[in-house]
């Protein structure tokens, strides 16, 4: 038994190392003085200082954050509403509507981005942050609807019916019963949406007019120009930020478990 336990333990360590070692190397190099990744390691904050003066990267970063926050809010709100409509009302073509949610997740983003670029061009929407927002919302919606929908499935309409018999009007039922019960699902969906937007390279790259970039696009551009440890520095900041966000969310909601 001890052997099996040691083996599982070692296996898990290897698995996590596989994921985390490249990340740690990158984070460490952000604190190495050499611009060419030379060893021995000499601690320095020079790349963070340079980063502080890199206006292009900062602007790209703030674009990314604004875009991600906005598309998360829009996608989570309208996606939750769509999930509610699908879960609680039978409508014509219900099954087809539900099935149509899946292809956008299977189709490569490159193809979706191409189609959006063409459509936005012909429809006059054009390129720019507004077009990127539309694209990010569209990409996030299926994930939001499916995650929130799963949560709605796990408790039937009985709780809402009960609330109505107890004298609660539809708004009271939504705010006091439905929303608190599906909140963990909505939070998870929001995280998905944020990740999809913040991580989005292809659509942003296609839809960004000259002079407007997001962080992934700018990082890609910098790498092409010549890789500097500044990128390691900003990546480290993003990683620490994401981890903090996850830690806060998981403090409020137990993922996988029932709340």
């Amino acid at each position: 038994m001890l052997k099996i336990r040691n083996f599982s333990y070692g296996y898990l360590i290897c698995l996590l190392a596989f994921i985390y070692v490249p990340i740690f190397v990158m984070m460490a190099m952000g604190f190495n003085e050499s611009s060419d990744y030379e060893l021995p390691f000499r601690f320095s904050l020079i790349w963070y200082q340079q980063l502080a003066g890199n206006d292009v990267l900062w602007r790209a970063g703030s674009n990314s954050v604004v875009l991600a926050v906005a598309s998360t809010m829009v996608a989570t709100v309208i996606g939750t509403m769509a999930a509610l409509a699908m879960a609680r009302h039978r409508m014509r073509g219900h099954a087809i509507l539900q099935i149509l949610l899946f292809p956008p997740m299977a189709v490569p983003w490159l193809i979706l981005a191409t189609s959006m670029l063409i459509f936005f061009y012909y429809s006059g929407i054009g390129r720019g942050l507004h077009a990127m927002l539309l694209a990010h919302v569209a990409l996030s919606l299926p994930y939001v609807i499916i995650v929130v929908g799963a949560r709605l499935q796990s408790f039937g309409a009985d709780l809402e019916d009960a609330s109505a018999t107890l004298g609660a009007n539809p708004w009271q039922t939504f705010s006091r019963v439905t929303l608190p019960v599906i909140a963990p699902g909505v939070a998870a969906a929001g995280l998905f949406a944020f990740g999809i937007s913040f991580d989005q390279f292809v659509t942003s790259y296609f839809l960004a007019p000259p002079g407007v970039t997001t962080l992934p696009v700018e990082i890609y551009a910098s790498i092409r120009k010549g890789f500097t440890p500044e990128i390691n520095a900003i990546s480290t900041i993003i990683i620490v930020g994401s981890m903090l966000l996850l830690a806060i969310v998981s403090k409020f909601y137990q993922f996988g478990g029932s709340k």
Partner: protein
Amino acid sequence: MSSVDIRQVTKTYGDVHALDKVSLTFAEGEFFGLLGPSGSGKTTLLRSIAGFVNPTGGQILVDGTDISHIPTHKRDIGMVFQNYALFPHMAVFDNIAYPLAVRRVASAEINLRVNKILELVQLGGYGSRRPRELSGGQQQRVALARALVSRPRVLLLDEPLGALDKNLRQQMQIELRQIQREVGITTILVTHDQEEALTLSDRIAIFRKGEVVQVGRPDDVYENPRDAFAAEFFGSTNFLKGKSLGKQGVLGAVELSDGTRILTSYALPSSGSPITLTVRPEKVLIQGEGQAVTDQGTSLNVLSATVIQPVYMGASVTYQLSTSPADFSVFQQNREAKRFEAGASVKISWLPQHTVVLDA
């Protein structure tokens, strides 16, 4: 306390009549059981009263006012669901306080009323627990307290004891009845459990295919079922087919297929019409072949029978018998030490007033 009047309520789904011109009146303070197999329309009627189902036709009146077009939350009803539908994110106290909170009752009064009703359902001190920390019976009581705390006009119960095991169910039946009497609320119960309906209801209605087959006090429906469906659904019974010979003296006579004559004190259709009779197994006396049948001055129905199988159930024995007109089941209290074995020849007898004539 309120009366509920169901007038010609119809609900169709495509060509299917879930309810077909159902009319019923629930009196003030009455405990009324809606009984029937699944798909018979009893649940559709309950959900129509709650406002979850929009009837295709007819009216539902509470105290004389038509509520058919009023949304559920304005109907002033209490309902206990089969799975209780307690709010998992709220403590017991907040669950019960919910109907008061959404009606904006002052918090001091909410405290008073919730604590009072917690005592009524014997859950004092459980207010801070979460529903999932309670047993099934306790959850059921919370659901009942929550449905009653706002003093609604009507209480609807949808198979409320279905999820409990048998012992707990019997205990909860008694408690439910006590609480209902104490509160005095008009209560409508949906159940497919005939024993539950018998124990709890002042009156019952038996449903079949969207129609009401029979309405009455449980004992009356049991003793005088109107047709074969009501007889069979409500307890076990024996059927005999034959044709009417009309009245012969005070009693009516019926000739069975094998020529046996059966007497009944029920009214018979005109001579020669085919009819179905039913006799409850516990009305029948079973005796050994040689024993004299004492008729105490009345005319008894007597048949010779052979025991196919005795089913021993401790307090009672149920005999499966074959007689020349039909197979028969007879219920016997386990009072005498002697029991009949399979293959034994016996005599069975019953009184004419226990030969119930059914509607064709």
